């Protein structure tokens, strides 16, 4: 694989050595030509729409008159503001366009600056009140952010895109192999994430108690002509239902890289033949219904663990299951048992209406309840969740006043 990587680097190096192409035309030539073009367009527009001008002027005057009239009915303070606005407008109308390209362009720039001036001259008292509110909001947000930075282990695609970073997700499982544990790691943006499928030992195995056998006996060998990753599998090592499940779960490495499917082949380059899945050339990633609960590791860290559900499970059943203890292992239910909810399914939006005697706080427990619902809802095909009847505007990083996007990356480390 390192050869592939080196090849990539040599291509990138060659590209970076491609020269800038010099322009033979000067600034003045461009400016003259552009002025002519803008001027020509301006004249054509005036000719075509000459009849519009008197109508628009009359309408604008009438509108201004009504606005001013309404403001007189209100307080004196606001009237002053409107007079200021009307004066600004008068000044603008005095800047009549001419047929000169220069002046047309100056008008465009002048409009730009005027817009900025209007925005930057709010009423002073309003401004002070707004500032106080802002300070309070920022203070609340700081607390929430602190909680977020310490404990949030999930990222939406949008949040991930804000950083110039690649993410790779490996799967391990807890010792009982009932819950899969996806673990996401950040890579520098210049690193090709594909090659790390074959270099899992750099990341996998950092948590001793986890089952780490997923990435053995399979190799990423490149891309096929349909730009799908091609994975070569030593099929003799996948002769049981559980090991086949590990195989397909491991392949989700490529799903988080944005692929919808991967090509599978045996060591001779032929289609893969597995005892349970049968003959298989291509594996397409499908969302399978699952729930997420918290696994408490020996070191005290928590990880989101995924347990697959029967395909006939309903979303409300899955969410209620999040309140139940597991029979084995250090798995925590992320939703308190005395919280009930109703749901409304609206396409890819899930509305969760909480019914609780308890007062929920802006704390880690509530954040985890929300995250478990988001993660579980995602596996049922929902893209957003709106929480209703919850007496807070936000919890941790989540704005509860709007639908929340489901996460893409889980257990980010």
């Amino acid at each position, binding site marked *: 694989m390192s050869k592939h990587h080196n090849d990539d680097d040599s291509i990138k190096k060659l590209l970076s050595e491609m020269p800038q192409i010099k*322009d033979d035309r000067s600034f003045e030539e461009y400016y003259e030509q552009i002025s002519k073009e803008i001027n020509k367009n301006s004249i054509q527009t005036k000719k075509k729409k000459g009849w519009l001008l008197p109508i628009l002027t009359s309408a604008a005057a009438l509108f201004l008159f009504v606005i001013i009239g309404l403001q007189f009915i209100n307080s004196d303070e606001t009237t002053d503001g409107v007079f200021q606005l009307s004066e600004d407008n008068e000044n603008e109308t005095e800047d009549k366009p001419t047929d000169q390209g220069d002046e047309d362009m100056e008008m465009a720039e002048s409009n730009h600056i005027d817009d900025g001036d209007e925005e930057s001259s709010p009423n002073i008292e309003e401004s002070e009140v707004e500032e106080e509110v802002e300070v309070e909001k920022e203070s609340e947000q700081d607390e929430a952010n602190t909680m977020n930075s310490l404990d949030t282990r999930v990222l939406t695609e949008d949040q991930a895109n804000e950083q110039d970073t690649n993410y790779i997700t490996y799967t391990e499982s807890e010792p009982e192999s009932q819950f899969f544990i996806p673990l996401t790691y950040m890579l520098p943006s210049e690193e090709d994430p594909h090659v790390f499928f074959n270099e899992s030992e750099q990341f996998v195995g950092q948590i001793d108690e986890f089952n780490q056998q997923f990435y053995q006996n399979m190799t990423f060998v490149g891309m096929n002509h349909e730009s799908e990753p091609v994975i070569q599998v030593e099929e003799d090592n996948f002769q049981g239902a559980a090991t086949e499940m590990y195989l397909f779960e491991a392949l989700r490495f490529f799903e988080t890289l944005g692929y919808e499917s991967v090509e599978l082949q045996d060591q001779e380059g032929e289609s893969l033949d597995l005892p349970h899945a049968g003959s298989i050339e291509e594996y397409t990633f499908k969302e399978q219904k699952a729930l997420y609960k918290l696994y408490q590791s020996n070191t005290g860290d928590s990880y989101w663990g995924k347990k697959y559900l029967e395909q006939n499970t309903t979303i409300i059943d899955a969410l209620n299951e999040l309140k139940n203890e597991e029979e084995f292992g250090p798995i925590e239910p992320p939703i308190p048992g005395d919280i009930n909810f109703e749901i409304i399914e609206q396409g890819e939006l899930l509305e969760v209406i909480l019914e609780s005697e308890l007062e929920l706080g802006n704390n880690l427990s509530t954040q985890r309840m929300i995250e478990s619902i988001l993660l579980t809802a995602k596996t049922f095909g929902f893209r957003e969740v709106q929480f209703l009847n919850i007496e807070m505007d936000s919890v941790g990083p989540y704005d509860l006043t709007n639908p929340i996007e489901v996460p893409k990356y889980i257990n980010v480390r």
Partner: protein
Amino acid sequence: MKESFQELYEEYHHDLFSFIFYMVKDKPTTEDLVQEVYIRVLKSFDTFKGQSSRKTWLFSIARHVTIDFFRKQGRRNKQTAQRFDFDEHVNLLKDQSPTPYEIAEKSEEIQLMYQCLDHCTEDQRAVIILRYIQQMSIKETADILSWTTSKVKTTQHRAILSLKEQMLQYKGGHTE
């Protein structure tokens, strides 16, 4: 206004010209398209809210102007080339605009890479130019193309693979 235009010109003109040139590979066409970009920029100067950087805004307009050009020329189908055929490719190049001297004076590998760019899709070529020739970040590239950064990364990966394949075939001197 002239001053503002001049400022924009001095800061970004060379990058803008190169971006469009590598997309269309013809100097006179590039000059026309650059001029069209500036006209659109100046006409929409007052609607620019500063939500993106001026650079991102300018290149985003350049991208749209280039797409419009390809649509008008009906070249889109040619760009999504089928399999690479080197002999055919050489013949095709002979009919195209001359290689600019900036490229001609470079190494044979650079000249070959310049030719291989023809066999990337328009999207791949845009990403390659912005990321590696213009040295822009993934975020800047995504903003210019109005894509997610994931899409930029995927397209970039596929473009590199495509270029690698073209270069290997050329060096091997055979067609597939």
